[in-house]
């Protein structure tokens, strides 16, 4: 009997883990990735919170399993734009032609980061010293240049929480969950890189929900002397010589404050990447630009199978902001549900 085939759209952490779990369950897996390399955002990060595990280690271990498994076929540079159902099987469409077929599909299209230049008052894209959290990761892993004088060993650095999140003016009211802990992590990394620096986190709340998070926040204050100011950043302006003047209110002290910084890091939130438009026999996979509507599982009930329709499963951060452990567990659980579906149990 020929093995049943599953197609996975997206080879980020959710897609990679889905592929491994499904192959281990005995399926043939076609793993499609639109970029030229797999890994999604994980490939762009330096170390992971809360334990500072190198992101590359996790990615390598996932990739090793994927490449080692004979049942997984990874194709990069393929953008699946739609799905068509023919009976019980699914056709995957790339640029109006059928790229492949499968007995079930996992949508693991992940997220996009909020485009920081849309939060105009922060000047991203205009002032070189204003960078996004993702750009900071790139500086770390590729050892790129800092946007301030090389000779400056004691830069003043600000990190801004909630950029593009919890913000009616940006059109995203939701909280992106992982930015607070990312800010704490990055603050510590910056202090490690520049021990003489002053690092300020401008926050509204400290969302330290995971185990190890609150401890990392404590460590950031105690061991690294990161300063936490409870006040959302209101604006960044050019202060001369490439420096940035920022304004916020220290709300706990009840007074406005102004600081001049050498670099400002914007914690950009996760936003939706792909929006599936589900019709009778087709699903169009549209790409969003900065809007916050993640993939909604119809009739979502806690613990129920995550599918848009029978056979079209959804895993990972494309459903909403999530951390890596959550995404990997979601991928594993979805694989089991998919197995139950294909064997007629579900």
């Amino acid at each position, binding site marked *: 009997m020929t093995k049943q085939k599953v197609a996975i759209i997206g080879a980020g952490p959710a897609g990679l883990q889905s592929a491994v779990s499904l192959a281990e369950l005995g399926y043939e897996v076609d793993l499609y990735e639109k970029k030229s390399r797999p890994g999604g955002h994980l490939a762009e990060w330096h170390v992971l919170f809360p334990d500072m595990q190198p992101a590359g280690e996790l990615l390598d271990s996932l990739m090793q399993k994927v490449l080692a498994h004979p049942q997984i076929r990874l194709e990069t540079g393929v953008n699946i734009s739609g799905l068509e159902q023919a009976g019980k099987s699914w056709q995957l469409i790339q640029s109006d032609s059928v790229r492949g077929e499968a007995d079930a599909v996992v949508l693991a299209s992940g997220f996009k980061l909020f485009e920081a230049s849309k939060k105009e008052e922060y000047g991203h894209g205009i002032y070189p010293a204003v960078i996004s959290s993702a750009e900071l990761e790139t500086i770390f892993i590729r050892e790129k240049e800092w946007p301030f004088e090389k000779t400056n060993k004691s830069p003043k650095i600000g990190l801004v929480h*909630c950029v593009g999140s919890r913000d009616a003016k940006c059109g995203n009211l939701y909280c992106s969950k992982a930015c607070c802990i990312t800010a704490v992590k990055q603050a510590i990394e910056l202090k490690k890189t520049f021990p003489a620096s002053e690092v300020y986190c401008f926050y*509204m709340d400290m969302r330290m929900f995971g185990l190890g998070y609150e401890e990392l926040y404590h460590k950031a204050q105690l061991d690294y002397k990161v300063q936490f100011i409870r006040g*959302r*950043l209101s*604006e960044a302006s050019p202060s001369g010589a490439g420096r940035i003047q920022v304004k916020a*209110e220290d709300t706990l002290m009840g*007074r*406005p404050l102004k600081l001049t910084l050498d670099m400002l890091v914007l914690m950009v939130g996760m936003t939706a990447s792909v929006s599936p438009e589900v019709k009778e026999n087709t699903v169009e996979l549209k790409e969003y630009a900065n809007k916050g509507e993640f993939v909604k599982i119809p009739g979502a009930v806690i613990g129920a199978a995550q599918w848009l329709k029978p056979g079209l499963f959804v895993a990972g951060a494309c459903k909403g902001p999530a951390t890596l452990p959550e995404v990997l567990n979601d991928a594993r659980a979805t694989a089991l549900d998919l197995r139950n579906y294909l064997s007629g149990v579900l």
Partner: protein
Amino acid sequence: MATISSRLKADIRFQDGLKACMNCGVCTAICPAAAYFDYDPREICQDVQSGDESILIGLLKGEQIWMCGQCLSCKTRCPRDNTPGYIIQVLRKISQEMGYFVHSRLGRQQLLLKRAIGHSILETGYCVHPKLIRPETHREQGPVWEWVMDNAKEVYEKCGSLYYEEGLGGMRKIDSDTLDEMHAIFQETGAFNLFDKIEQASEAKAAEMGLSFSDDDDNEYLREIQL
């Protein structure tokens, strides 16, 4: 209209101006009044959001609500689409309607504004016009302004202004029919009611403070509130 809360909610500016404040502080960060006074628009929103009548009365009687400069920079930035500046407008309105404004030094200044700007609109059809800005009381306008006012008619006419003459052009003398229409509009829309409230509350306050009070430009109460 029993409670202050209900008066607030009845004003469309309040409905638009206060949805739900999450205390982020971006308003206070860029507020020029917060830069100058011990003033915090975020705290005002918190006070109003509490709905507590005794806190609200405190606001209406206090100095704080008169510190906002109405620049509306707060509206641009608020991530919850609130506008502290609109909330202030409604608080000031209610403070005057209920006569509470005379309890604060800054609030008592409303009489000056009513008599200067309010009267100017009715008498000339302008909020502000050259003769109101007397060099002797406005030294900050500088010596050139003094020269301008010494030679006003010629200077203004040189620049194409009518300088209080009838006709079509800048600083024209606005015709009496128009001023009558303005008068009628003020009557119809309650402006005179507000003017009367300001005068009456001020007069009562003057009596309480033992100061003389009149319609004239000069009386003890006016001098007191100028300080």
